[in-house]
């Protein structure tokens, strides 16, 4: 079976699974309903209570998880391709921490700022965090260890500044804390409207650029000889990462490790040399975050827990696995 066939079959499976996941996500929770009930409640527009729950709370939340998961996963895939570093991701690269610092600063310092502008703040913060880690980690060749150390150092630094903002601004602290752990609780349609344009544009562009991105993976020199405008592709990819990860953080907080895990999982399944690699990554990211979101409702049932906790608990062992695999390869 060729790679492309396999990838195509997997994408169909992925789509089916994602739909099942979305249905599961709208069916499961504090008001439990069967899958069939959930779907009928969704279609049935008579103002039943179930319809209200599904259409104003559960559906936007499930869709938001899918959108953000796709964005983070593709951002991670692009970063791993650009740096050639298996540990690269929005989380390890300080992009998430930078974006959350900027958003918390905006909440505290500019309370009049309309919510849609948070995304722009998040972009600025994401640039800051990403550049800092890149500069510190790439001196004298970026090894995975250097990247991880620089990323953690920058992350600690940015998050202690974030904590300072929170300590000095005590009202609305609870909400900010929840958001800071990465959370989809309380998502509504306005959140979707805020993130969808950025995410859709970012995803579409990255699919269009998939060829250039996979050529970049072969290294700078090869890419140049194959006629790539290396600097231009780099800049474009940086921009894509910032838009994809930053818009997600602006809405749902820094959700970690989706961008680290998913590209690897997809690579194990189909390899990264197929044209469907990035779309599959997006699909798998969406699926992962939707499932993690369902899980997060049961950690402290009946209370909500931030989904970022679930992804961190899944991601940390995966990180260790990657590390030990790297070492064996080296």
């Amino acid at each position, binding site marked *: 079976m060729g790679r492309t066939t396999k990838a195509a079959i997997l994408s169909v499976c992925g789509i089916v699974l994602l739909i099942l996941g979305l249905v599961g996500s709208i069916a499961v929770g504090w008001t439990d309903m069967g899958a069939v009930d959930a779907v009928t409640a969704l279609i049935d527009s008579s103002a039943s209570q179930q319809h209200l729950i599904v259409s104003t709370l559960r559906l936007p939340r499930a869709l938001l998880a899918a959108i953000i998961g796709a964005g983070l996963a593709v951002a991670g895939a692009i970063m791993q391709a650009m740096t050639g570093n298996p540990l690269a991701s929005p989380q390890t690269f300080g992009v998430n921490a930078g974006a959350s610092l900027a958003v918390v600063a905006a909440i505290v310092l500019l309370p009049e700022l309309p919510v849609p502008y948070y995304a722009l703040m998040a972009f600025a913060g994401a640039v800051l965090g990403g550049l800092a880690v890149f500069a510190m980690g790439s001196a004298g060749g970026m090894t995975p260890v250097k990247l*991880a150390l620089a990323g*953690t150092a920058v992350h600690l630094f940015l998050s*202690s500044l974030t904590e*300072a903002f929170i300590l000095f601004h005590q009202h609305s602290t609870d909400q900010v804390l929840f958001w800071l*752990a990465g959370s989809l609780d309380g998502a509504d349609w306005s959140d979707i409207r805020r993130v969808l344009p950025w995410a859709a544009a970012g995803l579409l562009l990255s699919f269009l650029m998939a060829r250039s991105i996979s050529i970049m993976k072969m290294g700078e020199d090869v890419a140049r000889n194959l006629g790539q405008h290396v600097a231009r592709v780099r800049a474009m990819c940086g921009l894509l990462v910032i838009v994809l990860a930053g818009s997600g953080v602006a809405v749902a907080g820094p959700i970690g490790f989706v961008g680290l895990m998913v590209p690897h999982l997809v690579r194990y399944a189909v390899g990264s040399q197929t044209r469907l690699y990035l779309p599959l990554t997006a699909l798998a990211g969406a699926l992962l975050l939707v499932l993690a979101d369902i899980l997060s409702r049961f950690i402290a049932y009946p209370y909500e827990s931030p989904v970022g906790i679930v992804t961190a608990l899944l991601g940390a062992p995966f990180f260790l696995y990657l*590390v030990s695999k790297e070492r064996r390869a080296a």
Partner: protein
Amino acid sequence: MAVKRLLLPLLLLLLVVAAIVSMGTGAVFISPREIAEALLGTGTKNHAFIIGQYRLPRVALGMLAGAGLAVSGVILQGMIRNPLASPDVIGITKGAGLAAAIVIFLCPKSPPVLLPLAAFCGAAAVAFVLYLYTRRRSVQPSTLALVGIALGVVCQAGIQYLMVKNPGDVNAALLWMAGSLWGRGWEHMWAVLPWLSVFLPLTLLASRRLDVLSLGDDIAEGLGERVDRLRVLLLIASVALAGACVAAVGSIGFVGMLSPHIARKLVGGQHAILTPVAACIGALLIVIADSIGRGLLPPMEVPVGIVTAIIGAPYFLYLLARERKKRFS
């Protein structure tokens, strides 16, 4: 070389000056002369009380904690051979934080002794897992760092979970996480002192071995060092130092990372001189940061940890610029 030898006394002098300034600032200003009188027992009762019961133990604890964190950083940076390693990055501080959060949230009525004890156990637990993970193979320094980072992430997730579940006590926990000398007294000082008085001299004794180790594992082994065993011992020393300090003052960040750096700039990489200089710089950093935190917006206090992060920022940026320059030159 002469300059280097003068540096240590100079730093100690600076430390004394900083301590005097720190004891003077606060809601009640006390002049240096009055401080001296209070210390000698000839001052007013009021001042003697403030100094003896509040400000002196606080300054002493700050110095000890700064020195301990700095030396812990020296050990880790020498051992892992990366200038960004430090107890906060390796997850030790986060382990202490998780244990502290468990105590703060789940048994808020517990006696105050329990919190530092739990924090120390948390740090030790992270160190133990680190040790277990690395025991089977030879202890690669990079593995140590990466496993520590992953453990830190897990602990952080736990802390966030507890914070979100118990929104009522979040401020106490946040204050502890930020690291603060507020309300610390002699008993905290006495709790830290034994750890430091054992492990600081031990580290100094091991300074030649740290020098050898920072040349690389192969060279160290060639020079007759039992690298794996040495590394485990050094890890224990570093965790004991960091754990004791974090237990007493909360997770003050960046002192463990920045002090060894600054010291290395000043005196170079020989651990025999690097270690004491880094300890002095760590102590200075915390004492100065604490005075700033108290003097900035009296009667409100800015937690020391936040001040050290803000002081750390420009230095961090400077490091960044230097690394960039190295890369492009």
